[in-house]
């Protein structure tokens, strides 16, 4: 389904859109973004269970629906539109992805059902102060101790890291790069919420002082499953971003249609019309790329990696550019706190750099380009 959605998917999308329009109004977004957690368990649980969002891509054997990444990306596009404040990206993609890609059957059996049921929130902690998105930036150590492992070091820019029940951690063990799971309340783990520029998405810094950890997959075998997890996250994020960009574009268009200046709707000024045309072009191209990238990963195409990086690069440029235009189109009002535009503007800026900015992904795209 690279170029179209099935009628089932379209129906799912419209149900989800209705649900989020109802449960994630900007009034609600503003309320939640001011909280330390950044979301509320009950509110999120209600939304999640209504459509089984965290279960979508988890295999049926572990309590999920076993649907595709493409299906999950519909969820992200809609969440991006609604600017939903919830630990979905961290739980259902970063953590669940790592578990599905790296975990043994037993580990998946132990960890996934809780996530699918929406009882467990989780995240993946891999970046450190050096700010590198790649696995090789990992300095945090895992040392064998009395049958188990203990982790020492730190992680930062951890999405929803201060609230997650379960934390998947990328560490250096003697055997090499390895993944572990840690309980959010584990002893020796200090979690500090960071002040995020985009209040609708929270990050945390985690300090590990001899924290007991359970291995996820074979020690030293984390490189491949980790990479796979990140590329899936990149594609999901790209879809979230095009959802947000499209919503911003639509709102800016609607505003231009009703806003009067010099005795006529500003939508009747040619410069506004051309700006809106350019916005549509940029957003639609980014959408096509985000859709394609998801399907290409599902279908295991040769160009899947290149497409994923391409999608994130275009989404980063398109979302930020659309946000800049959207504020501009709203004029002074668009610069005020009470106008909603800045909520998406800030999400655009944080999404632009999260998992690497456009330039970073353009370079990776070219490295993965065929011919």
């Amino acid at each position, binding site marked *: 389904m*690279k*170029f*179209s959605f099935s009628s089932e998917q379209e129906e799912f999308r419209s149900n989800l859109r209705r649900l989020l329009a109802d449960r994630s109004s900007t009034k609600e977004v503003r309320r939640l973004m001011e909280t330390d957690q950044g979301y509320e368990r009950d509110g999120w649980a209600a939304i999640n269970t209504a459509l089984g969002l965290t279960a979508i891509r988890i295999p049926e054997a572990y309590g999920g629906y076993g649907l595709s990444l493409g299906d999950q990306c519909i969820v992200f596009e809609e969440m991006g539109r609604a600017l939903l404040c919830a630990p979905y990206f961290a739980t259902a993609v970063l953590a669940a992805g790592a578990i599905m890609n790296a975990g043994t059957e037993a580990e998946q059996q132990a960890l996934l059902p809780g996530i699918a049921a929406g009882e467990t929130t989780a995240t993946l902690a891999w970046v450190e102060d050096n700010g590198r998105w790649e696995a090789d930036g990992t300095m945090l150590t895992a040392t064998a101790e009395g049958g188990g492992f203990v982790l020492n070091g730190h992680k930062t820019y951890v999405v929803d890291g201060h609230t997650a029940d379960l934390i998947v951690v990328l560490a250096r063990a003697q055997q090499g790069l390895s993944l572990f799971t840690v309980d959010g309340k584990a002893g020796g783990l200090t979690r500090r919420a960071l002040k995020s520029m985009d209040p609708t998405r929270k990050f945390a810094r985690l300090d590990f002082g001899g924290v007991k950890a359970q291995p996820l997959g074979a020690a030293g075998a984390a490189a491949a499953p980790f990479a796979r997890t990140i590329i899936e996250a990149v594609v999901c994020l790209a879809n979230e971003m095009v959802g947000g960009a499209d919503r911003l574009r639509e709102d800016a*268009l609607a505003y*231009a*249609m009703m806003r009067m200046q010099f005795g*006529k*709707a500003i*939508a*009747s000024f*040619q410069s*506004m*019309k*051309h700006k*809106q*045309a*350019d916005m*549509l*072009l940029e957003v*639609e*191209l*980014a*959408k*096509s*790329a985000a*859709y*394609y990238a998801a399907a290409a990963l599902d279908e295991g195409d040769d160009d899947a990696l290149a*497409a994923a990086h*391409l999608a994130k*690069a*275009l989404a980063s440029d398109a979302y930020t550019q659309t946000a800049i235009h959207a504020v501009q189109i709203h004029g002074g009002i668009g610069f005020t706190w009470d106008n909603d535009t800045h909520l998406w503007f800030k999400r655009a800026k944080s999404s632009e750099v999260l998992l690497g900015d456009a*330039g970073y992904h*353009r*370079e990776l*795209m*070219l490295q993965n*380009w065929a*011919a």
Partner: protein
Amino acid sequence: MTEINEDTVRAEARAWLEANWIADCGLVEWRLKLAESGWGVPHWPSRWYGRDLPVGLVPVVEEEFKRIGAIGVAKVGIRTLAAATILAHGTDLQKEKFLLRILTGEDIWCQLFSEPGSGSDVAGAVTRADFRGNQWVINGQKVWTTSAHKAHWGLLLARTDWDKPKHPGLSYFILDMKQPGVTVQPLRQMNGYASFNQVFFTDAKVEPEMLVSEVGNGWAVTTTTLMHERRGADALRSWAVASDKPGRIYDEERDEIRTTMEPYKWYPQRVGRIDLLLERARATGKSDDPVVRQEIAKVLSMSKAAEWTARRARTAQEQGRPQGPEGSLGKLASSLVARAAARVHTSLLGPDALLTGEDGPMNGLLAEILVSVPACSIAGGTDEIQRNIISERVLKMPRERTGDTDRPFKDVPRNTVG
């Protein structure tokens, strides 16, 4: 009367082709057979060389042609637009006279819409058609006419009433290009080619029965032609390639394609030749330059995304779903891609960008990109026109108030031709 579905159509087509296709046969001869059988244009009415097949099933028939290697009816050039227009608006007499020779490829057609004084504004045509005695007399000038010097017939948009407003003052004719009142001159472009012509009419004649639809309905007919032109634009690449199979009929088709494609030689350069970017970067030792890599990646990602966007539109069409906005974006996207590609080619060329012809790299082909790309954002509707269309038709933003549609055209300010 068997039920019509993919399987029955495929079976029928295959059976007929296996029974009739032969490579050792004249092109026209074979196409006459196709016309008679209806397999050449199966979606056309059975009364006019078709089989009344739903458009959705045409690809099935084409697959069978490809499978067996059979050649289809003449598809290249303006003649396709002529056929579509005549089918939609023409009289039986016109269908009788033109459709068959269009399918066989015996007639060459050209389009006489654009004028020096009205480029983007086709409906602003001032070429006049006056009914004198028992026929129409044409005076004026057209421009950007491909193959006018070879054409037998022209699709002419002309003004028949100056007291009516802009659009209702127009009528649509089929004009005989081989007559004394028609002079064709080549039009040289900044890239040195002369792929187009200017056509001058001095008391050129059109018989009354060569009027298409009614007097004053020229604009409606024109939009039909333009609509098919836009659709065809995407096709260009696909139908341009000739088969390399041996056989008399293939030779004849190769000739046909070569001559018809001749004016389009530089079109690949016009869209920026992004296919050359990576190879050029390697050739110039710049494939590791991070700045160059970023610029190349920008162009490649944009063009890929544009390609996927077009696929979304086509898929929607094929599935019979309402096409989203993605349909109208292709032209604008391709001109942005072309411009960006020209920029990258320039930086890859370095000092070599100073040279052209045999002294330039790739025998001047790269220099040709630099001087051809500017056409991409103009030809077939400028970027500005595309943005107007997108904002007004797709986004439903208010139309520009123009001062030329509400009064007699003779009172509208316009260019003194030039």
